[in-house]
C-alpha cells in the first residue's frame, strides 16, 4: 500500500494549473475534448487560460482541474487541498452531462455500428447479439438512473446546506456496481468470435466505439470514486463535527 501510493502522482505543481492555456490542455491530452464539451466549454477559445475559461463559464476551477487530472493521469489521486477547493455541484453537473452523452450519443452510435456489422449474420446470431446489447444497455440505464435519482439529488441538496436525512455518500460507495463486464465481453466477441461474413472495416468501427466507451466509462467511474465520494465524505464529516 505504502509503495503503491508513492508511485501515484500526488504533486499538484507538476499537474495542470489555472495559468495554463486552454489550447495547451487539449494539446496535452485530446481526450479532454469530450470533457470540455460536456462542461459546455466550446472550442474557439483563442489564447485564454484555464482560469479565464472557468470564470467565463462560471465553473469552479478546482473542480475543472480535478476532472481534467483524472482524465490525463493514470492512477491520479487528488490531493486534499484540491478536493477541498472543488465544488461537488460542478462534479455532479459534469457526471450528469456525461450520462446524457453516453445515453443519447455514444450508446446509440455503438448500437447502429453493431447492427450494421452483424447485418450479414444469420437470424439467430443477430437475435442473440441484439439481445445481449439491449441487456447491456438496460444495465447501464439502471446504473445511471440510480445515480440520477438518488445520488445526485442528495449531493445537490447537501450543497445547498440542508442535509437530507437517511442517506449518506457511504451508501453510494458500497452500492456502486460495476458495469464494465458486459462491455468487455462484447469487445471479445466482436474481436474474436463474430463469423467471417462480418466486414473488417465495420468491425474496426465497432471496436473503436467499444474501446472509447470502455476507457471513458472507466474515467467516469474514477471521477465518482476518487473525486465525488471523498469530496462528499469530507463535507459530511465537517457537518457532523
Amino acid at each position, binding site marked *: 500500500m505504502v509503495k503503491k501510493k508513492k508511485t501515484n502522482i500526488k504533486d499538484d505543481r507538476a499537474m495542470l494549473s489555472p495559468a495554463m492555456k486552454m489550447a495547451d490542455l487539449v494539446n496535452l491530452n485530446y481526450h479532454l475534448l469530450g470533457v470540455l464539451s460536456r462542461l459546455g466549454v466550446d472550442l474557439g477559445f483563442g489564447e485564454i487560460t484555464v482560469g479565464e475559461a472557468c470564470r467565463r463559464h462560471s465553473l469552479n476551477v478546482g473542480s475543472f482541474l480535478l476532472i481534467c487530472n483524472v482524465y490525463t493521469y493514470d492512477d491520479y489521486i487528488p490531493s486534499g487541498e484540491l478536493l477541498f477547493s472543488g465544488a461537488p455541484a460542478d462534479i455532479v453537473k459534469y457526471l450528469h452531462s456525461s450520462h446524457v452523452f453516453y445515453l443519447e450519443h455514444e450508446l446509440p452510435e455503438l448500437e447502429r455500428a453493431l447492427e450494421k456489422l452483424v447485418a450479414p449474420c444469420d437470424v439467430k446470431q443477430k437475435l*442473440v447479439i441484439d439481445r445481449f446489447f439491449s441487456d447491456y444497455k438496460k444495465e447501464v440505464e439502471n446504473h445511471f438512473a440510480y445515480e440520477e435519482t438518488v445520488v445526485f439529488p442528495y449531493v445537490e441538496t447537501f450543497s445547498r446546506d440542508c442535509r437530507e436525512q437517511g442517506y449518506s455518500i457511504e451508501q453510494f460507495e458500497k452500492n456502486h456496481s460495476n458495469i464494465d463486464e458486459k462491455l468487455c465481453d462484447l469487445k471479445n466477441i466482436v474481436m474474436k468470435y463474430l463469423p467471417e461474413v462480418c466486414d473488417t472495416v465495420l468491425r474496426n468501427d465497432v471496436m473503436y466505439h467499444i474501446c472509447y466507451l470502455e476507457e471513458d466509462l472507466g474515467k467516469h467511474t474514477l471521477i465518482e470514486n476518487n473525486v465525488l465520494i471523498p469530496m462528499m465524505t469530507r463535507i459530511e464529516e465537517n457537518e457532523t463535527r
Partner: protein
Amino acid sequence: MKHGNRVKVLLIIPSRIIARGMEGVFHDLGEFSVEGILTDLSRTSEVRLKNMDVELIVVDPVIFDCASRASGRSRIAEYSDAAVVALQTVPMEDDVWRQYDEVVNLYDLPPVIIKKLRTVLANRSETPKSDSQELSAREKEILVCVAKGMLNKEIADLYNISIYTVITHRKNITRKTGIKTVAGLTVYALLNNLIDANSIE
C-alpha cells in the same frame, strides 16, 4: 535439473533493489532464468503477463492495495497458469499469505529460497494444467450448461464432479475467452454452434 531448459520466472516486485537481489539469487543457481520484471499490475503489465508463458511468478503483494490483497493470487490466475510464490517484504495478515503456493521471506538464504521454489514446481507438475488456449471438450460441455442457465450445483451433479471443479472450469473458460458474464458466454456458445437458439431460456 534439466540443462539448457531452465524454469522461466517472472518477478512482480516494485522495489528495483529487491528485484535485482532476487535476480542475483536465480543467476547464481542457474536452473531458473528471470524472463522479466514488472513493477506493478497496470494494464500494460497485465498484457505482458498474459503473453509471457512463465512457469513461476514471484510477487510482492504490496503491489495490491489493501482491499484487493486478499484476492491477489486469483487476479494473477486470470492472466497466467504459472505457480505463484509470494515474496514477504512487509508483514501482512495471514490470509494474504495463505493463498499463495509458497512464501519466500526477504531474509531467507538463497539455498532456502531455491529449495522452496523447487518444491512448489514439483507439486505443481502433479496437478493437470490446461496448457492449450483453446477450450477443452469438458470446458465446452460446461460452457453449454452455463449458457443454458444451469447453476454450478446442477452442473456438478450432472457430470458427477465437485462444485470446486466446476468453478475451476468456469475460471479457465473466462481466462481463455475473455468473457465473464453468462449472457456473454451464451453469445459465444451460439456463435460457435455449441448450442442452438431454441435451447436458450
